[in-house]
């Protein structure tokens, strides 16, 4: 059976596409080094239009209004510029309501695009631009540590990572959130109290990485101004040991935290990237691999989640679980040397 690879890597190659959904102006060039705050591409993400009824404004019929037009499509205007007219005893005119561009004109109407501030898409991570996607953005590559999550509140940031303790076994509580964490991206085992998320916003922290979180906090977590990423799932369990090790080893280093919402179809996972200078050239990680003896796996469901273990054996044929479900199982030795059997469907592959 083929399983998804959960991306928790101490040292890997990372390649990310940063693009806008609309055409814009790309500001970077190939092989340029970028930092997270560098702007990759700018574009009016949501252009605003006004449909001006020239005929009505001039109190003439549409054909006559077209004759009175002073501007053609493509012309840039400042606020107050005359678009059409004058006409009549009082020299009626229609003026540009704001600065903008005439997009279309005819049949007594003008479609006018208002100048609006351009959206700036930042790199969001350190790296090198390896490819330009014309008018849309670029591809950034880097080497370093990667921690993939399963839930994010849709926000993005960059800052210093600070674990709240040397072992992310414990619940994050309000008392831990001292002033020393101000401006940091903190990491902890799990969270179940709304007061903690609120207190973290007051410190204020820059971001929060949790092993797990109570699902009752989802609505509040979505409202928080800072990014929140959950690595393992919705429960009250310590962070998986692979992610914990990376976060502790990289204490006080910069992490690019993209707590984007999970979209497995598009392959968008929330993630944290810690760029590292490395002399090796690690391969890009595979996305899916076959479950077989010897593979390192993480348990994604059940009381043993999110423990990490190694597959000793895939049991041949379907087996019956205590609840009556028939499925394929693997025998696994956990990090604490205990053995267990887990359905293959409840495992993901973990690569070092």
């Amino acid at each position: 059976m083929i399983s998804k690879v959960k991306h928790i890597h101490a040292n890997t190659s990372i390649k990310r596409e940063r693009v806008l959904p609309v055409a814009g102006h790309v500001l970077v060039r190939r092989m340029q080094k970028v930092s997270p705050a560098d702007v990759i591409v700018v574009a009016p993400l949501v252009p605003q239009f006004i449909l001006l009824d020239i005929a009505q404004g001039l109190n003439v019929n549409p054909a006559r209004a077209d004759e009175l037009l002073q501007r053609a499509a493509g012309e840039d205007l400042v606020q107050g510029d005359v678009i059409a007219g004058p006409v009549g005893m009082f020299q009626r005119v229609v003026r540009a309501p704001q600065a903008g561009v005439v997009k279309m004109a005819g049949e007594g109407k003008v479609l006018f695009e208002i100048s609006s501030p351009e959206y700036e898409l930042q790199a969001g991570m350190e790296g090198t631009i390896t490819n330009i996607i014309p008018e849309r953005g670029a591809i950034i590559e880097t080497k370093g540590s990667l921690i993939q999550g399963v839930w994010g509140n849709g926000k993005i940031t960059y800052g210093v990572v600070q674990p709240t303790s040397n072992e992310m076994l414990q619940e994050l509580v309000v008392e831990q959130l001292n002033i020393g964490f101000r401006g940091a991206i903190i990491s902890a085992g799990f969270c179940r109290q709304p007061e903690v998320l609120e207190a973290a916003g007051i410190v204020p922290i820059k971001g929060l990485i949790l092993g797990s979180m109570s699902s009752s906090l989802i609505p509040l977590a979505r409202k928080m101004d800072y990014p929140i990423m959950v690595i393992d799932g919705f429960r009250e369990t310590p962070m998986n040991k692979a992610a914990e090790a990376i976060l502790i080893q990289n204490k006080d280093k910069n992490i690019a935290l993209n707590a984007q919402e999970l979209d497995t179809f598009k392959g968008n996972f929330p993630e944290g990237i810690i760029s590292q200078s490395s002399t090796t050239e690690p391969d890009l990680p595979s996305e899916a691999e076959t479950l077989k003896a010897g593979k390192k796996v993480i348990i994604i469901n059940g009381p043993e989640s999110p423990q990490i273990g190694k597959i000793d054996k895939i049991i041949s044929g379907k087996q019956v679980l205590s609840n009556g479900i028939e499925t394929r199982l693997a025998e696994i030795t956990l990090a604490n040397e205990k053995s267990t059997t887990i359905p293959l469907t409840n495992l993901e592959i973990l690569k070092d």
Partner: protein
Amino acid sequence: MDTTTVAAKSVIAVDIGSTITRSLFFDVVSGKYRFVAFGSAPTTAGAPNFDVTEGIWRSLEELQYITGRALLSEKDGVIIPSTPDNQGVDIMVATMSAGEPISVVTVGLLNTVSLQNARHLAHTTYANIVAEISLNDHRTSSDRINLLIRKRPDLIIITGGTNNGASNSLLSILESIGLSSYMLDESQRPHILYTGNEQLQDEVKAGLSKISKLRIAANIQPVLGEENIHPAQTEINEVYKDIRKKQAGGLREVISWTEGTFTSTASAFGRVIRFLSEKYEPGKGVLGVDIGSDATIMAAAFNGEETLRVFPGLGVGSGSAGVLEKNSLELIKRWMPIELSDKEVRDYIYNKSIYPSSLPLDSDQVEIELALAKQAIRYAAELIIPGLPKQLGAGGTLLPYMEPIIGSGRILTLAPKRYQPLSVLLDGLQPSGVTTLALDQNGLLPGLGIVSETNPLLTVQVIESSTFLNLGTIIAPLGVARPGTTILRIQVNRENGRSFTREIKYGSLSILPVELGEKVSLHLRPLNRFDVGMGGPGKSGKVNAVGGVLGIVIDARGRPLQFSPDLEKNIKRNEQWRKTFSKYE
């Protein structure tokens, strides 16, 4: 008709689901079409493959292994047509539900009339309505243009105006649609489906055909109060296919294998339910329910008239969080026969939505999934019932009389206990009168639906080959009484001449011991003006029935099912119902 009289052809029907891709193999066995086997593999429409052919290939490899028949060649891909030495397959057809729902903006004159039609139409496919525009929304033309540009929908459905009715008001909205489409990149311009006043069709063509991918269908409401959805439903299915062809890698190759016989899973599902309604029990409707990982489909058909509704984001895998968000934890927990904390249930549901393929490890987790399935079906049923014919059966908020009701989806077919699929369908749908609950145990319905278009004989012969598992005949009397009051006397006459009688009390759930496949004649005598679908309240009658997996189930719990605000009481009652069923597991 025997298949020896027609050119018999083997068929593979591929269904590209959101999680699993399945390849069903049909061939002629002893002169009749039969379902032979299926292969399955994870769907590869999304990340990281972004190519549906990978999943299809793997499912065919499994099918090849199971059947021992070579279906693939390294050089040519799928071997079509079959060779004289029985390699390959003659015909391949495909259905698809994988992919994000298409985003739709509905446009109509009035919120209560034409927008309602547009919503019905959008709900016949995998679509999310992201905005609505109507004359009474008080938006200016500029507001409409900006809204459409901000939403960038895949499809705009335009309805409004009866034939020979209003035209000027609709034209003003069309101007905004045309301008907004023109302002978008050509690659981002929406499909437009016009299904409004037919007098405006020429103007719509002149104004929009050069700017957008325009389709025109007959007016969805030609006269006030009369909905004619089917021509537009055909067109929206074509739009769905066009969008998927553009989005899903490898789909063009699949369409070439199938020579164009490709449609949405929901459309094929609806088609087979319609087909069944034309063939069987014209007095009642046929109902199909498919509960998938991400979406639920409900299709009802009465004498060939189909009502189809797709509920994206309402499922028991990736759609499980959607069930919770569209309902409430209380509505899900009310179905459970065990006490679990809100936290346990909520966390399980959200974990299931991020790990949809993971399996429940204990009986408690199975109960959460079954409760999710019941509430998903209940939610869907409550939304579809108002649009079903009311003259047949209970009407109102209750399901009209149906025969049969067919359920499909892995939550039902892989349920560990035999009573569980019946319990999910019975509680979720709450049918009344006499009906049969059946299970599409091999997930054939979409495949049979799409095949019925070109080879109806295959569909008929496979359906008649007992491919659906009879879960049980259901008798559900309608009426009101005090719990414990006798409301029905049933005499069961077996084929061997023996008979027995039962008195049914209001509030009870009971099972008559009839073996799977055993034919019996039932004499139903309702009391206290209860109605068992024999022509009205208090009317008796005879009905032939066949025992299902659970024999014959008498559901006298009342309609709709009532729940106590006391959680403990609910749990006890659910446990009692479960015990009734589990005697026959």
